[in-house]
């Protein structure tokens, strides 16, 4: 068993990197994969909060790197999914506490015993980002259908190409079909056409994402939610399955109405 290291990055903050990391981790673990997530956002950690594990942190990433604990001691086991672990970021340090070389060594140590290592990158293009992409075998670039988020994603993809990392795949998060239909939002085709990398998922805007993040129960734990289903689809695509894309842009009106008829309040 040799894990694949996947780094989730975006450039711009607030587009949903941490939510994506948490949900993909849950979706992969629910499918029986051994997953470890690493929060590389040192100083501004919150992957632990979204996963609902913040009250169990004893040691963190910087403790491991600086030799104050063994790797296993910093890995928090998620009781809901025995195959899911989190290595939290330190909250009281900064990005310079860890180097790209540290991240590569850490992942090499984790690889033999896991299927997937997911790294939640901080926003920005500086040291923290370079730490997060150093060990990556694959990158997932998260963006929103907004001009500013797309421009930052483009910059990030350029840097990933320059560092000869990759492949980079695209996740468009918070797609709002109603706005798209009115012509007030970039369509997924617009975003994909500009960024020109393989699209691996489109996640619809869904208030249950916020609610479940606040509860520390990623939405992917609930397959009935549209966003949860989208994350499960991405997890399956990561495993090489061909999963058709939900037609959010064009047919959602009809689909939405049908699904509301079948399970009222379900979306």
């Amino acid at each position, binding site marked *: 068993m040799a894990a694949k290291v996947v780094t989730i990055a975006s450039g711009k903050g607030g587009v949903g990197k941490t939510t994506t990391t948490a949900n993909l981790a849950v979706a992969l673990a629910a499918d029986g994969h051994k997953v470890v997530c690493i929060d590389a956002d040192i100083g501004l950690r919150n992957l632990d909060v979204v996963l609902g594990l913040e009250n169990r942190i004893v040691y963190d990433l910087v403790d491991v790197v600086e030799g104050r604990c063994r790797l296993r001691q910093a890995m928090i086991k998620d009781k809901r999914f025995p195959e899911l672990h989190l290595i939290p970021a330190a909250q009281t340090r900064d990005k310079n506490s860890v180097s*790209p070389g540290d991240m590569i060594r850490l992942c090499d140590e984790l690889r033999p015993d896991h299927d997937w290592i997911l790294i939640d990158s901080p926003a920005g*293009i500086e040291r923290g980002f370079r730490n997060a992409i150093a060990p990556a075998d694959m990158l997932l670039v998260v963006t929103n259908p907004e*001009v500013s988020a797309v421009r930052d994603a*483009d910059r990030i993809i*350029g840097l990933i190409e320059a560092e000869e990392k990759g492949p980079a795949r695209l996740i468009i998060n918070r797609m709002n079909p109603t706005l798209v239909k009115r*012509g007030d*939002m970039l369509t997924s085709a617009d975003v994909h056409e500009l960024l020109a990398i393989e699209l691996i998922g489109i996640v619809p805007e869904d208030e249950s994402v916020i609610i479940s993040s606040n509860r520390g129960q990623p939405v992917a734990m609930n397959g009935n939610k549209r966003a949860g289903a989208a994350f499960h689809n991405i997890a399956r695509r990561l495993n090489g399955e061909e999963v058709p894309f939900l037609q959010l842009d064009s047919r959602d009106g009809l689909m939405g109405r049908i699904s509301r008829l079948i399970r009222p309040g379900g979306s």
Partner: protein
Amino acid sequence: MTEEIQNNLIQIKGIRDGLLVTVGQGEWDELRRALLRQVEDKASFFHGARLVLDLGDRTLHAAELGSLRDDLSERGISLWAVLSTSHTTEQTAQVLGMATRLPSPRVSRARGSQEGGSAGEKAVLMQRTLRSGTRLSYDGHVVVMGDVNPGAEIIADGNVIVWGKLRGSVHAGASGNPSASVCALELAPAQLRIAGYLTALPVRRFLSGLVGKKGRSQPEIASVRDGQIIIEQWNPKEK
């Protein structure tokens, strides 16, 4: 900054734009170690310095150049420009967001490019999309086969031709040549300059490349006429 540090592998001297490091012949690993040794020996001299690296005709890849930049930045030095006669190295540096030529007095170059005529002028060909954050500056014509995305910049002393969608910023005839032109299969730059003339295209037009209906776009050409920048459909029969 006139202090000069020399040894047989690398030469360091102070210039107007920071410190110029010229590397000699030899294995890259050895040169790189020599440079880092110098930097560590004279840490206080180098701290906060802006470095220009002259690599001659050496070919370096992104991983090599990127890791050197990281090592230098950990020592408080910013590698901001790379000079090279190798095309690969130049492109690598540009992709990493470094400058590839130093600002030079504009007057002398302006004269050169206006007298040059079209025969034998130099041009650079980029066969890829320029993404946000990329800056390509060249003292000749620039041809891009690919898109120029919003947030990318092209600065050329000559003409700019984009075989793709131009949505970034572009400055043609940058050394003061108003007869330069810009053309693209889809011309929708955020900002377009020719010599000293500037046009900020209406926002609606810029967005048309991004939002809204997919109208068929026509190749267009921008040039200066009667003191302003005019954009017209490309019509080869009229030329």
